[in-house]
């Protein structure tokens, strides 16, 4: 087969079809993600980014201390995975932060009385269990409730996340038992940095 024949053959290859509706909706989905991330405000008035972030972080931290239940917002969803809130909380409560949870009731932190939380990389989890939808930031070795059972969250040296419980196993490649009924997305957060990309919701 010579080059012109090969080029012709390659160009003949078609992409799998998508509906017109998909192409109509795609730009709106991208814009929707950007809006949810609050990027519009940052882009249009960049000088306010630092002030807004600090104000949001301070406000959230004060709310956590008082166990203030603020209604969940798009910024909160995004900032749970981004740097400022998590870093601030880790600084405020060294060795005491078990988890940060965002659910239908708002944003909560789980703190330990003593500094007995082992140092591990933070892990971000998004869990859809029936109608319930939660986002959790916790650490390898910590326990959470999922699929009606207590599970231990673990990450390995490669950053892979697994969840282990009684009759419950979840990893990105395979799940068993009651984990099969739950939608989970999990990532180790190796660095707590400022402008990480917010993930799409499940």
């Amino acid at each position, binding site marked *: 087969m010579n080059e012109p024949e090969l080029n012709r*053959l390659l160009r003949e290859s078609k992409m*799998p079809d998508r509906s017109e509706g998909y192409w109509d909706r795609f730009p*709106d989905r991208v814009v929707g993600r950007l809006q949810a991330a609050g990027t519009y405000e940052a882009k249009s008035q960049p000088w306010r980014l630092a002030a807004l972030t600090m104000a949001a972080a301070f406000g959230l931290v004060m709310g956590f201390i008082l166990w203030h239940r603020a209604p969940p917002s798009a910024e909160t969803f995004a900032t749970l995975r981004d740097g400022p809130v998590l870093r601030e909380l880790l600084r405020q409560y060294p060795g005491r932060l078990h988890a940060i949870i965002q659910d239908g009731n708002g944003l909560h932190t789980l703190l330990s009385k003593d500094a007995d939380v082992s140092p591990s990389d933070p892990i971000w989890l998004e869990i859809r269990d029936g109608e319930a939808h939660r986002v959790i930031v916790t650490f390898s070795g910590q326990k959470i409730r999922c699929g009606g059972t207590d599970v231990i969250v673990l990450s390995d040296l*490669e950053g892979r996340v697994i969840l282990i419980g009684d009759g419950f196993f979840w990893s990105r490649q395979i799940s068993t038992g009651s984990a099969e009924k739950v939608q989970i997305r999990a990532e180790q957060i190796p660095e707590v940095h400022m402008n990480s990309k917010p993930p799409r919701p499940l």
Partner: protein
Amino acid sequence: MVTDDEGILIARSREGDWDAFAALIRIHQRMIHSLTYRMSGSLSDSEDLAQDTFIQVYRNLGSYRGSAKFSTWLYRIALNVCIRWRQREKRRTSTDRDWAEADIHGTPSDARSDWIQEALVQLPPKQRAAVILTAFNGLTHSEAAQLLGCPERTLSWRLFAARRRLAKLLGKSNKLP
């Protein structure tokens, strides 16, 4: 180099005009989807990668100076997104997994196209990118080399190696659907 219309859309997007950015996406979405599909071999992943590409485009609009074609700049971002995604996937999944993804077929296209895509995913990433940019997206060697950040001669060698391999894979007449 941008068209007048495109230039206006870019400027308005920088100012936060969502409709303008959505219009820019509409102009280039099929091209980017094609690239991410050819690179990943997976329909579902290609959609995510296309979204991620436009997110990066929006965040970096301030750095686009207009010296290169806007579409070339988009390609570069898309390729980087694809390559970074693949590196993350490789770290996460078994080392036995190849570059090729399992769900090439997605919604049915045709058997011949699937066969060609299956051959394509067997190429190493840099060779695959070179073929996609030149054969599918019609870039010149010079444009493709600039986009991939390599000398034109290197690109030519990559294309030579890729074509030889594809010819072997596709040229087996008993495999032609």
